C-alpha cells in the first residue's frame, strides 16, 4: 500500500514576540493512498499548523515530510506553489471563494495557474460542478448561493485539478447540521469513487466519524491514533489534562458512541488495519 504522506518528527516553532511557541512537537504520521484521515484536537492543539504543513502552506521548522514520494519540507516558496497546484486540493471552513467571480470562474481558477486553455478550463469546471450537483448554478455569484452550495463550489474547485491529496479544514464548520451531513455524504462518496486521499481537520466527533481513521492532537503531539468507530474502532474520546505535570486522560462517553451509528463500512485500505495503534507519547 502506497503512502501519500510520510511525516517524521515534524516540529514547528513560532516566534510570538519574544516567546517561542512550539506548535508541533515531533509529529510522526503516515497516510495511505485512498485513506480518509480526520485530525481532531482542541483549539491550540496544533491541528491547524499541522494542516498548513501538510498543505505546503507552511514549512516545518525541522523533521521530514515526504508527499507522494517527493521530499517537500525544504522546498522554496515557488517549488511549494508548484506542489500545491499540481498535487493538492483545499477546502476551507470559510469556503474562500472569490466573491466577485461566478461559481464557474472560481472552479476555473486553479487551472489558470496550470496554464490550461480557457476552453478546456470551462469544460472541466462544468464537469466538476455537475459532479457536486451544481449544474444549474454555474453562473451564480458566491453571494447568491447558500453555505452548502458555496462549499460544494469549493469542493469542485479542489477536485477539478485531480489532486493526489485533498485537505479539508473544518469543511462543515460554517454549515448547519443537515447541510453538514449532506456535505460529508458527498465528500465520502467522492472520496470512495475517486480513491482520493483526504485529510480533514475537525473538532466535531460526529464529523470525524465519517473518516477511516482519527488522530487527536494535543499540545503539538499526536496522542490518539485509531480507526474511527464506523470502521470498528472505539468511540472517539475527549482528551482531558489531569494533574500538574500535564498528564492526559481519555474520557469516553458511555451512551451512543459518536458516529457508531451502525453504518456498513465499505472496503478499508488493508494497511490501515495493521497501522491501528494507540500512541502514548507521555
Amino acid at each position: 500500500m502506497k503512502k501519500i504522506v510520510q511525516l517524521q518528527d515534524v516540529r514547528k516553532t513560532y516566534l510570538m514576540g519574544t516567546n517561542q511557541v512550539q506548535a508541533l512537537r515531533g509529529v510522526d504520521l503516515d497516510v495511505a493512498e485512498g485513506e480518509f484521515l480526520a485530525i481532531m484536537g482542541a483549539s491550540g492543539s496544533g491541528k491547524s499548523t499541522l494542516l498548513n504543513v501538510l498543505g505546503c502552506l507552511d514549512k516545518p521548522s525541522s523533521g521530514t515530510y515526504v508527499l507522494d514520494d517527493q521530499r517537500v519540507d525544504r522546498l522554496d516558496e515557488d517549488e511549494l506553489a508548484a506542489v500545491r497546484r499540481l498535487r493538492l486540493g483545499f477546502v476551507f471552513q470559510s469556503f474562500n471563494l472569490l466573491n466577485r467571480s461566478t461559481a464557474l470562474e472560481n472552479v476555473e481558477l486553479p487551472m489558470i495557474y496550470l496554464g490550461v486553455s480557457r476552453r478546456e478550463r470551462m469544460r472541466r469546471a462544468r464537469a466538476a460542478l455537475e459532479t457536486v450537483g451544481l449544474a444549474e448554478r454555474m453562473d451564480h455569484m458566491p453571494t447568491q448561493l447558500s453555505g452548502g452550495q458555496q462549499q460544494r463550489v469549493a469542493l469542485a474547485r479542489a477536485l477539478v485539478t485531480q489532486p493526489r491529496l485533498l485537505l479539508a479544514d473544518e469543511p462543515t464548520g460554517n454549515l448547519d447540521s443537515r447541510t453538514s451531513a449532506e456535505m460529508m455524504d458527498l465528500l465520502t462518496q467522492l472520496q470512495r469513487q475517486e480513491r482520493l486521499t483526504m485529510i480533514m481537520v475537525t473538532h466535531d466527533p460526529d464529523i470525524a466519524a465519517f473518516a477511516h481513521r482519527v488522530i487527536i492532537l494535543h499540545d503539538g503531539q499526536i496522542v490518539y491514533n485509531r480507526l474511527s468507530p464506523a470502521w470498528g474502532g472505539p468511540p472517539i474520546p475527549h482528551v482531558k489534562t489531569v494533574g500538574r505535570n500535564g498528564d492526559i486522560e481519555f474520557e469516553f462517553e458511555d451512551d451512543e458512541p459518536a458516529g457508531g451509528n451502525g453504518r456498513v463500512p465499505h472496503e478499508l485500505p488493508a494497511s490501515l488495519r495493521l497501522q491501528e495503534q494507540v500512541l502514548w507519547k507521555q
Partner: protein
Amino acid sequence: MEAVIWLESMRIAMREMRRHPTRSCLTMLGVIFGVGAIIAVVSISQGAKIQIQDQIASIGTNMIIVLPESSAQGSMRSGAGTGNSLSIADGEAIGRECSAVARAATASRIITLAVSEVANWTTEVIGVTAQYLDVRNWSAEAGRVLDRKDIDTAAKVCVLGQTAAKQLFGRTDCVGDRVRIQGTPFLVVGVLAVKGQSPNGSDQDDTIIVPLSSAIRYLHGPDRPKAIVVSATSKETVALAMEQMASLLRQRHKIHEGQVDDFSIKSLEEAARMAEDTSNVLTRLLVAIAAISLLVGGIGIMNIMLVTVMERTREIGIRIALGASRQMIMSQFMVEAMTIAGVGGVLGILAGIGGSRILSQVSGWPAIYSPSLLILPLVFALTVGVIFGLLPARRASRMRPVESLRHE
C-alpha cells in the same frame, strides 16, 4: 502558461476598474493629463514650427539680406539700415560676381500716402530693381510684374499687393487704374498673388512696388538708404554666398582688414533657426512639465495599487493556496497596473488630440500628429505603469498564504 495568466489578469483588471469607476477615473486622470498634455504640446509646436518655416519660406527662397549700417550725422547715429552705403551698382556687382548667388536686387522702402480715385491708404512703397520679385519668389495674380524696361525708363508704373489693392480700390481687379503717390500718378500694371503674414507678424500684401529708378526720380531722391536682397543658388550655398558678398562689398567699399563693415548681411536661415531654437526650448520645457504630470499619475497608480493589494489580501491568499507562484501573483498585479496606465494612455491620446484641436482653433496654429507622437507617450505611460506597479505587485507576491487566508 504566462499568456493564460496575462489574459486572465487583464480580464480581472478590467473588472476591477468597472467595479470602482470613480476610483479608476481619478487614478487614470494623472496619466490622461500627462499623455494628453504631451500630445497637445508637441502637435501644436510641430504645427507652429512648420507654419513659421512656411512663413520664412514665403519671404523668399534661400534669401539673404544686406542692410547698410547706421548713418552718422556728427556723433549722432541713426541705427542699422539708415546709412546710404549700398548702391544699385553694389547689387549688380553681387549678382554678377558671386558664384553662389542666383539673383540679386536692390530695393528702397518708404512709408507714404497713396491715393486712388475712391480711397487713400498709407502703406509701404518699395522701389525695386528687376529681379526683386524673383528673389521674393512672388508672381502676379493679375496683369504683369515689373520688367527691365520699366526700370530702365523709370516708368510711372506699379504693382499692388492684395491688401493695398483692396484698401485703395475695394477690389483686386484694378489693373489699368491709377494710384497717385506723392502727387505722381502710377499706372497699375499688375496685382500680386497673396503672400500672407511675415514671421514678425506684418502683412506682406500691404505694399506697392514701383521701379527703383522711378522711386528715386519721383518719390525719395538718390540718397534714400537701399538694401540688397539676394537668393543663393541653393540652401547649401547660403553661407558661401554670404562670405562672397561680404568680401566683395569690403573690396568695393575699400574697407581694410580690421575696419568695421558699413553693411550687415543676414540670412533668413539664421532667423528661421533662431525661431526654431526658441520654440524647441519652449516645447522641451512644456513636455518636461507634462512628463512630470505623467510621473505623478504613476504615483497615483502606485497608491491605488497598494490599496487594492491590501483590500484583496484574502484573494491573494486564496490564489497562493491554489498554487499561484510569486511570479504569477506579481504578473497579475503588474498587468493590472499596466492596464490602468494603458487605458489612461489611450484616453490621454484622445484627450491630447481633442485638446490640440481646440488649441489649434484658438491659436490658429495647425496641429500635426506623427505616428511616433501618438505611440511614444503611450509607451511612456505603460513604462510608468510598470515602474509604479512594481512595488505593489512585489508586496502582493511576498504575502504569506497562511496569514493572508486569515485576513478579513
